[in-house]
């Protein structure tokens, strides 16, 4: 199915998982601390990686630190397994570790992601690795790092509601749709990376371990399995996820997060699942959306 995946072989010129052993140990130490204090941002010595900041250097370093020879890796970019970034990161790890890569969420032991949590429920023992651009949820509110750290230390999070207030005042509802701030384990405010707020409820009490890595900002943080994750809201404007009037054109799902795709210059559009693996699986199982039925 995926040609590049099949052809890449382990390149012995690189240490296992690209980073040297002491760097991986440093990262694992930071990750242990992150797991011990859910939602707390732990600094680490971010390394130069063979791709630019903003392309997932944080996530790649976290994956490199935890991956073992027996792991099976899946990489998602915008919910899709076959975009440039996803393919390249998957091939990178195939080359520097020789581990098996997959597109199946069920098979994978490590899922590195940008923008989405798979629709397929995760299970115990799996690890989600998120690529985080800006880890500090309070940054827009307060530009000073010493000040934001003090605010975290004293759990002074009231100011975050100013943003939600402003949304309701301007749009009539909470218009923040991605990177929607959450409180982890009743204590630390956390940015869940740019996932849509549709995925926020999946973070709450999830059986999988969630690790977040920000390469440029040099921070890791974590949500351990079965941890409470609460999205911010107002009493009279409770947290709500996105909803669509459409179902997926390809697989007919009404439960998944839909991407709006513009098909031509006339503005013809189509809604399809953002999670390509989930959509393909459903189609293989015989489900069909309006577009697929027309074609048949």
């Amino acid at each position, binding site marked *: 199915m995926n040609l590049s995946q099949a052809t890449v072989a382990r390149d012995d010129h690189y240490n296992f998982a690209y980073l040297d052993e002491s760097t991986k140990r440093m990262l694992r130490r930071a990750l242990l601390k992150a797991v011990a204090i859910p939602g707390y941002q732990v600094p680490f010595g971010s390394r130069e990686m063979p791709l630019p900041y903003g392309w997932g250097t944080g996530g790649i370093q976290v994956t490199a630190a935890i991956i073992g020879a027996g792991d099976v890796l899946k990489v998602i970019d915008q919910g899709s397994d076959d975009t440039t970034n996803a393919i390249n990161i998957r091939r990178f790890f195939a080359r520097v570790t020789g581990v098996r890569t997959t597109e199946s969420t069920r098979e994978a032991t490590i899922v590195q992601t940008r923008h989405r949590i798979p629709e397929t429920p995760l299970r115990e023992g799996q690890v989600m690795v998120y690529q985080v651009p800006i880890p500090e949820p309070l940054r827009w509110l307060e530009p000073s790092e010493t000040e934001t750290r003090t605010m975290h230390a004293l759990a002074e999070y*009231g*100011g975050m509601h100013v943003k939600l207030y402003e949304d309701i005042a301007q749009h009539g509802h909470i218009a923040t749709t991605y990177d929607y701030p959450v409180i982890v384990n009743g204590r630390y405010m956390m940015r869940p990376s740019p996932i849509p707020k549709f995925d926020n409820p999946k973070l709450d009490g999830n059986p999988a371990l969630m690790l977040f890595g920000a390469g440029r900002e040099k921070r890791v943080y974590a949500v351990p399995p079965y941890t409470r994750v609460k999205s911010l809201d107002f009493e009279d404007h409770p947290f709500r996820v996105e909803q669509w009037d459409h179902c997926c054109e390809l697989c007919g799902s009404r439960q998944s997060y839909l991407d709006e795709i513009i098909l031509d210059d006339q503005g013809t559009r189509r809604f399809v699942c953002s999670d390509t693996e989930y959509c393909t699986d459903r189609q293989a199982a015989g489900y069909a959306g309006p577009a697929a039925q027309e074609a048949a």
Partner: protein
Amino acid sequence: MNSQPLLSVRDMTCTWDGVHGCRDISFDLHPGEVLCVVGESGSGKSTLLQAVSWQARPESGSVWYDTRDRGFVDLASLSAAHLRLLARTDWGFVRQNARDGLRMQVSAGANIAERLMAVGQRHYGDLRRVAGSWLHKMEIDAGRLDDAPAAFSGGMQQRLQIARNLVTHPRMVFMDEPTASLDVSVQARLLDLLRQLVADLKLAAIVVTHDLAVARLLAHRTLVMRGGRVVESGLTDQILDDPQHPYTQLLVSSILQS
């Protein structure tokens, strides 16, 4: 007047480099009392304000404050968390430039409601109602609740800043040259409003100013500072009408007479 002071400053010295700052400051402030600190630029007025409000830590001496939960305590004995809570709820800070005290990228309503959200209020409708009523009190049209402060005039911004501070019903407000950047007619209106608020809400205030007219209109008592020290203090009328210290005499005589 209540016999128990709200704030008590004793022999406080706070300098930036061992030389500049304020020295040996002592005064009491009672609930509902307005104290003006006047003096020329560099006389230590603003340092005094920062030290009393614990934004800069004094080198020696003490500042006592009558907290709502623990009674009369030395600010040095409070934890950082407690001090920040005090500054957010029981105190207000009005800065000379409204842009320094406001959050310019969010609406007027959000600016007023911020402190309420910071102390845990989570009902949008209630927050909005309170913000609207404060805008009304500040003589700003309630229809401007969703406008950004940048769209407001200087005087309105200053009033908005005051509303933002008073929304948690503080008992003490620190003001640093609140009227200095406004033109004269707007100044008069703001002073009028301030005088009314201070009386209605029984606010204690420390107002730093170099404008003796502000002291005359607002303050019950006045401290005159020069070279980091208080050279004269007393009732405002007494100081302005019968100045004793040569420097105060100079200050008073330099007011333009109409």
